């Protein structure tokens, strides 16, 4: 961890904020209904302490409503949510929670320093702490030259950065980030990624809602997919063995009945000319599949396993957008 990160976070890495086996977030059958519209149907999820958790879903899937319920901004119609062991919305527990809303906005007449001081005061920080934290966070997020600028002069990217700073001002144990890289250039995105990793290193839990799947893929430990207000799948990005594997085989003289026989190992099979593509849930079966294909007398030129990217997994779970 670079020195500047270590100075900023008083909870040194290696001293976790929670027991590793604890849950930062636990929900059971969380439901939110607006009139006749069901925004969140049956949300049950668990997020371990110290994890970077990605929350993925298409527009209108219920992501923002779910986050708002976890933060106590929206009251659930039914179900339960525990955040850091307390019912969601508890005022005391908010001392340990940071939140960057999507499209962060605040009083535009405040300067960057004033905004951080205000949010620090709301979190109960002393003047002494603020005197240390405010310049350090501004430096960390590259806003030191703009510390006395009013927010009305800030670009969208700068607003996102100052929004992230206010979410971190009190060193929260659990941080909700709703589209944190929205409006940021590549350097800004890299910075946010580094900040998120630094949070994990000090033991904080990060709940990340983002449309940028490539960002999520390289940042998160675990992801959940939400569709029409319901969790439809989870995926552990830390384990090499987890998830679906796609295999592309280049072969000639492959009998049709051999291809049909692959169904005992494979979830999907497609054959086009000399290219056979199939998917399986376990890499353990690959040697057996290879032997099976070779035994059929086919000439095999290549046998290439590929892990599905998060984007492919996302599209597979959610289905293609048929809007156009």
């Amino acid at each position: 961890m670079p020195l500047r990160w270590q100075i900023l976070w008083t909870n040194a890495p290696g001293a976790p904020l929670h027991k590793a086996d604890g849950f930062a977030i636990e929900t059971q059958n969380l439901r939110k209904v607006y009139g006749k519209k069901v925004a969140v149907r049956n949300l049950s999820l668990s997020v371990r302490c110290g994890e970077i958790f990605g929350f993925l879903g298409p527009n209108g899937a219920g992501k923002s409503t779910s986050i708002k319920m976890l933060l106590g901004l929206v009251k659930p119609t039914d179900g339960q949510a525990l955040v850091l062991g307390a019912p969601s919305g508890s005022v005391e527990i908010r001392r340990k929670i940071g939140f960057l809303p999507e499209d962060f906005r605040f009083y535009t007449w405040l300067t960057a320093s004033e905004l951080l001081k205000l949010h620090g005061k709301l979190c109960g920080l002393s003047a002494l702490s603020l005197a240390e934290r405010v310049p350090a966070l501004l430096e960390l997020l590259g806003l030191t030259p703009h510390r006395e600028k009013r927010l009305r002069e800030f670009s969208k990217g700068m607003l996102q950065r100052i929004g992230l700073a206010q979410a971190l001002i009190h060193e929260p144990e659990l941080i909700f980030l709703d589209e944190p890289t929205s409006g940021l250039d590549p350097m800004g995105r890299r910075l946010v990624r580094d900040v998120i990793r630094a949070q994990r290193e000090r033991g904080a839990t990060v709940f990340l809602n983002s449309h940028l799947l490539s960002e999520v893929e390289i940042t998160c430990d675990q992801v959940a997919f939400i569709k029409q207000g319901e969790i439809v799948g989870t995926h552990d990005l830390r384990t090499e063995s987890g998830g679906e594997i796609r295999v592309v085989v280049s072969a000639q003289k492959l009998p049709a009945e051999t291809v049909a026989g692959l169904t005992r190992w494979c979830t999907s099979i497609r054959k086009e000319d000399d290219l056979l593509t199939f998917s399986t849930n376990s890499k353990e079966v690959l040697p057996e599949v290879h032997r099976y294909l070779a035994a059929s007398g086919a000439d095999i030129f290549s046998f290439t396993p590929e892990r599905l990217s998060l984007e492919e997994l996302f599209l597979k779970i959610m289905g293609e957008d048929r809007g156009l």
Partner: protein
Amino acid sequence: MRGVWIMADVTFREATRRKIVWAALLAGGAFLTLFAAAMHFQAKDLARYNVPPFIRYQVQSSILQVGFYAADVLAVLLAILTSVDTISGEIASGTIHAIATKPVSRWQILIGKWIGFAGMVAVYVALMFAGVGMVGRVVTGIVTPRIFLGGALVYLECLLALTMTVMCGTWFSTLTNGVIVIGLHGIAFIGGWIEQIAALTNSPHLATVGIISSLLMPSEALWHRASFEMQSSFARTLQFTPFANASAPSVTMIGYAVAYLMIAFATAIHHFCERDL
């Protein structure tokens, strides 16, 4: 209570940075200047025509009521227009999300905001009443009786308008909120004058309509009581002049206005704490 004072402080600073406050101050300053000039020329005319001092006093006291009435209207409008989007606007823009997820209760946020606006309006009412009072004293030599009581009643009227605006802001969008509160104030205005006409014409039906209007929104009744308090005892007996009172609202009506304000305030807190943001 720490959260309340932090919110009050930022709201006061937010309110005083709005252009409308500066517009209201400019309008108030322009009005006071014109008012002082008018009072000055009128005093010269009254002196030129050798109007007896007693009559001169009564005429100038009545015109001073015009000044206080203008201050009252400006202050009420300022209270409504500065606070009209404080809740609904911040919910719509998402600004409230960054605040409501901090370790402060929603009631602290709402009370803090209310105190911030109340502080700004207090400064404005004090400045305007001091200005009109000074004009009266310097130009005509008249010391307005019970000016502090009158100012307090006008301030109560502003707080009532502010509370209604904050309360409706927890339910409605900014535009709807503004229409409702200004509409209610309009009903109160008409009702107040109907009551005065009823007293002059001795019409019990008109009086009932006026009272119902004042019960719906007792803001104008507070002005009428303030005006009554700031009149000379002789003017009170004159019954009806454009800015004096034929019928002063009772102390019970003042109590009703206070109870109305408190219920509106409690309703605003309850609804803001319960609603989704």
